[in-house]
């Protein structure tokens, strides 16, 4: 009896301390266990592929490891890092210079250029690569043009299938990240510093390097890291241009179902990604210089004077090679297709389009639904636990799609065979990769609504339901929808995970474009590519507004 009493007492006091502890963690604002459970489940779902790949790589055995470390990994490291670093440097330089010209100088038509120069962001690099092969390939338009003139040449003096070619193509379709992000930072930076510099007698050049550039370091850093991560993760453009990085090596290893090798290579790629993210954190810690309230006045524009023409030519040149050229090539082949009477716009094409919409639409809707509990927990029940959950759901966003797909292939083939080789798996991969876009947009939307509003509505006698439906969700909705639109577009363009996970007979526009382009069937590839670009234009307005 007595013993039992003590035990119960102990239990009660144990429970008490547990309660206290948990109240402390949650700052007295404990979420219901069920909400917490769902959020945890979502976080697990989002991180599972990563965990499984890492687990597989440890199972790979020393033999696999030794073989790969001795010959393959050093070569791939060099290929991958030299490409990522070159593209990052080049596209940051172009992005910053363009952003400065467009935002800070009296360039003619600068308002229009601001939009036009961001356009390459909607052209997936693999589609860009196709158009560059068509024009600059060994027997491309340039070669034909040269041979049509009197001179007969057998070989172009350059080849697009080279390191330089890959760097060029990747740069042209990634610089907009830098252009958009640093451009927005420039608009937010007070021009007072510049004025001081100018009044002290420094010219525009010195002012740019000594004053403007240092102020922009955080935004340049953040956007370069985006570019770097993008290059790490790209599969389509790199493989079309016959360059092998970790990402394409993993793709080929898995296509040959050399699972241990694919897992080992993935682990190295994950490690590179983590290092990059760590660097990002260091950059972010540095001070943010922009001033968003008070003294910001419309920055003075700098007169370009005699540099006006060169600046205009530069802007025009970049626009031509990154937008005009690829889009014209695609329009040309699409029109050729329409005139060819091949009947390319048939049921099959419609089927691919519908499949694309089905995957992208489901991914968008599911991403919106899944992100609501996570955002709510993070925003309304702040604690270390909810931040960890929130951050874990970002896993797929930072990692290359091939790794997500690889993890899902392993996991489902071995443990959940019913769902293996189904469209669900394709959708799941897109959700894991792109849902963080909804999290970002939704979180910033909910943070604008004070919880006090919800509380006061409740204190005025409104039911919880009504508060949720009339205040919380509507306030989040614009953000959620915008995020959903971004997910839709990203999933529409997505290539490697779809290629690796699609069931037999299931083709999407992106998959068809990739296949047809690699078989040099440009007439067939062009309409799909053009359609992907057109649809990607839709949420661009939101993207531009946000940066």
């Amino acid at each position, binding site marked *: 009896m007595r013993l039992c009493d003590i035990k119960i007492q102990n239990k009660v006091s144990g429970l008490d301390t547990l309660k206290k502890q948990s109240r402390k963690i949650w700052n007295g604002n404990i979420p219901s266990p069920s909400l917490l459970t769902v959020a945890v489940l979502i976080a697990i779902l989002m991180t599972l592929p990563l965990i499984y790949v890492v687990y597989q790589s440890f199972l790979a055995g020393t033999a696999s490891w030794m073989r790969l470390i001795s010959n393959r990994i050093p070569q791939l490291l060099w290929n991958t890092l030299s490409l990522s670093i070159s593209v990052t440097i080049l596209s940051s330089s172009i992005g910053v210079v363009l952003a400065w010209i467009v935002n800070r100088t009296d360039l003619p038509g600068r308002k229009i250029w601001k939009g036009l120069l961001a356009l390459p962001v909607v052209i997936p690099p693999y589609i860009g690569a196709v158009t560059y092969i068509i024009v600059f390939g060994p027997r491309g338009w340039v070669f034909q043009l040269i041979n049509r003139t009197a001179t007969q040449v057998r070989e172009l003096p350059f080849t697009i299938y080279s390191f330089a070619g890959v760097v060029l193509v990747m740069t042209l379709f990634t610089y907009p990240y830098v252009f958009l992000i640093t451009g927005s930072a420039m608009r937010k930076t007070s021009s007072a510093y510049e004025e001081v510099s100018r009044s002290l007698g420094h010219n525009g050049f010195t002012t740019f390097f000594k004053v403007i550039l240092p102020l922009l370091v955080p935004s340049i850093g953040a956007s370069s890291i985006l570019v770097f991560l993008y290059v790490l993760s790209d599969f389509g453009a790199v493989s079309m241009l016959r360059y092998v990085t970790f990402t394409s090596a993993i793709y080929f290893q898995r296509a040959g179902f050399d699972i241990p090798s694919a897992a080992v290579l993935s682990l190295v790629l994950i490690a590179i990604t983590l290092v990059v993210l760590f660097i990002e954190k260091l950059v972010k810690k540095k001070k943010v210089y922009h001033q968003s309230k008070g003294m910001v006045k419309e920055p003075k524009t700098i007169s370009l004077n005699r540099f006006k023409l060169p600046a205009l030519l530069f802007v025009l040149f970049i626009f031509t090679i990154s937008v005009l050229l690829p889009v014209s090539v695609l329009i040309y082949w699409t029109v050729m297709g329409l005139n060819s009477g091949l009947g390319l716009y048939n049921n099959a094409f419609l089927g691919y389009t519908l499949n694309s919409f089905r995957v992208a639409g489901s991914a968008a809707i599911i991403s919106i639904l*899944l992100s609501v509990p996570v955002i709510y927990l993070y925003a309304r029940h702040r604690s270390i636990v909810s931040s960890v959950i929130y951050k874990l759901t970002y896993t797929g966003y930072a990692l290359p799609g091939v790794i997500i797909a690889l993890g899902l292939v392993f996991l489902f083939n071995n443990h959940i065979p019913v769902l293996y080789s189904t469209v669900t798996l394709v959708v799941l991969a897109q959700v894991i990769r792109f849902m963080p876009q909804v999290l970002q947009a939704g979180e910033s939307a909910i943070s604008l609504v004070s919880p006090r509003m919800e509380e006061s509505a409740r204190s005025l006698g409104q039911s919880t339901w009504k508060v949720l439906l009339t205040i919380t969700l509507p306030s989040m909705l614009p953000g959620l929808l915008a995020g959903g639109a971004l997910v839709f577009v990203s999933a529409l363009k997505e290539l490697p995970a779809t290629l690796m996970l699609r069931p037999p007979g299931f083709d999407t526009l992106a998959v068809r474009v990739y*296949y047809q382009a690699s078989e040099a069937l440009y007439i067939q590839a062009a309409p799909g590519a053009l359609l992907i670009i057109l649809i990607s234009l839709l949420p661009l307005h939101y993207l531009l507004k946000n940066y």
Partner: protein
Amino acid sequence: MKTNKVLTALGISSLVLLAGCANTSSESGEANDELVVYSSRNEQFVADLLDKFESDTGISVSALHGVEPLQLMEERNNVQADVFISNDIGALEYLNNEELLKSTDSDNVESIEEQYRAENNEWIALSSRARGFIYNKDLIDEEDVPTRMEDLMDDTYSSVENGFAITRGGNGGMISNVSALRHEWGDERTKDWVEAIQENAAGIFEGHGDIRRAVGEGIHAFGLVNNYYYHQQLLEPENNNVGFVYPDQADGEMGAIVNAAGVGLLNDSPNEGAAETFLNWLLEEENQLAFVGESLEVPINTELDPPFEQAVNLSELTVQDMPLRELGNYFEDTRSLIEDAGLDLNLR
């Protein structure tokens, strides 16, 4: 707390939704009105055949193209495909040794010579190909094209104008080429060969179609391909000034390396009935020809006229003295040999 409950419900329902949109396309049961085909051949060569099957029988086909045989190994406990169409007998025999393929007994199976079938018809070869060199007549004279496989180890061919092209080592045709050399030369010399061609080649491509186009367009002087890619290039409206050399034809040389494309049915597959219908249908002579289709290979069935009339028949060639089945025993180690040399991922 009510808010939390609502959100919980929302979260759970969307998780369920995600799981739910699964079974829209698969799992039709035993109706046998559909068929899942895995194929390692180029989609262009198989698509018409499968369309014909659909319209002839009303069975709907879902196909996955560009599949490597090890995917079937990986899925052995969760079989997805009913039929595997392969362009490499080595791969088929390897899967057969692993007991993934099932024995069959089709109506017209005798139309294929026994040496082109597995012991219990676990696989059946339908079209043949031989390895050789496609060359561009504008760039190189026939006598300057190598006449033996081992010639490629010779540095002089790396300095031929515009150089020569091979496929990456992950390619099925290249894998069986290497297997055949291992049978002939042993591993040491074959390894030297793989390393040397990787060193000497000017272009390393994803597939043979890329090579024939590149040689036709004069980007490279010659390339190592299967003979039917030469047939295909001859039929192109332009860039078709190409020739072909069957190597190792002289007395005492090993003879041309031969391989075949064929088909096998999988054990415990989802639609076994439809798979058998497919095999019976495929062995009808008309459909044996449709199997060759646009690839312009030579049908194994000697009763049939090759779709490409000028095609050199196997009987006119000196052919390597090795039963095709033998390729299956080399398959796995060949892959690791190629991987050790780094050719499986090399592209240029």
